[in-house]
């Protein structure tokens, strides 16, 4: 059992990485990159501390 858990721990990064990359690509294909780009180009008053 311990061997199985160690084996899982050693290689679980593979499906995690593949899943993360797939999700990122899926998000980009659904326009989320464009949304981030749009937010980037809007001056962030909260970040600067302007206004109330």
């Amino acid at each position: 059992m311990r061997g199985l858990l160690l084996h899982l721990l050693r290689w679980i990064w593979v499906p995690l990485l593949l899943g993360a990359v797939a999700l990122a690509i899926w998000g980009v294909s659904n326009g989320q990159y464009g949304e981030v780009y749009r937010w980037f180009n809007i001056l962030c008053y909260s970040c600067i501390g302007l206004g109330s």
Partner: protein
Amino acid sequence: MDESRPPRWLKWRGKIQALSTILVNSYFLKGLTGGCCIPVLNCWACPAAVASCPIGALQNAAGQARWQRSAGGSLLSLVPFYILGTLVAFSVLLGRFMCGWLCPFGWLQDLLGRLSRRKLRLPNWTGYLRYVFLVGLVFVVPYLTTELWFCKICPQGALEGGIFQPLVHPELRADIGTLWYIKQAMLVAWLVAFVYIRRPFCRLMCPLGAIFALFSRVSVLQIKFNPNKCNNCGWCEEICPAGLDPRKQVNSHLCISCLECQKCPQGAITTLPIWRLHSDSESQVKKGNLPSCATRCNN
């Protein structure tokens, strides 16, 4: 390879941190990379920032999710897969390497930390506070209020956006109000804390570090402590920028993977890919350094 000598590239950490800070604030790539979420805490309100702060982007996504849900949007469309997927991918590969080697705010903490040898130690439980900021101020409150509440208190924003934007754009100075003064006061408090506490922002508040820490235990990059080589000199605990004791807290969720402990004079701390972390005894058996029963020992 002589394991008692640290890898030469470790001495480049400060220079790499400086280079990373310059690159993410190099201005000229703005038009190309503005939609990229870089895995470091660099305020996108900085006039020279070339890419988006992932924490700001997550807050925006949470606020937008509120509007989309009100308009009948599907649950899947509410989740910022691009941002989360990017961050998880970096974390799974490199753990918190970005915190220790690339983050501009981490670099600032390291620089100011050199000003005093006297350090205040924080209890370990304080490392869980950043998860409260992550869940509360990055997801829940922005979803409920559609405002970027973490950005309102972020000291990196106060430094890079709050100081440099009004300098570069004088027309913004008319909008300076109470929030700006509060942010600057908080920034000053953090800067003082950086001198007397090791990486306090990373430990107490950074939501990006909190995300990376979730996956750092299973990331490819791992640190191994060999107690057989350790002579308990305490050198690693003395130099750890995160205020940890690597002998006890190696691969802790608070570790920033700066790899400074790898300079151990005894060579007791090394960096390994995760698939070798638990199988080192197997390779030693194959080399003839250990008896065959070593692979069955609990280590």
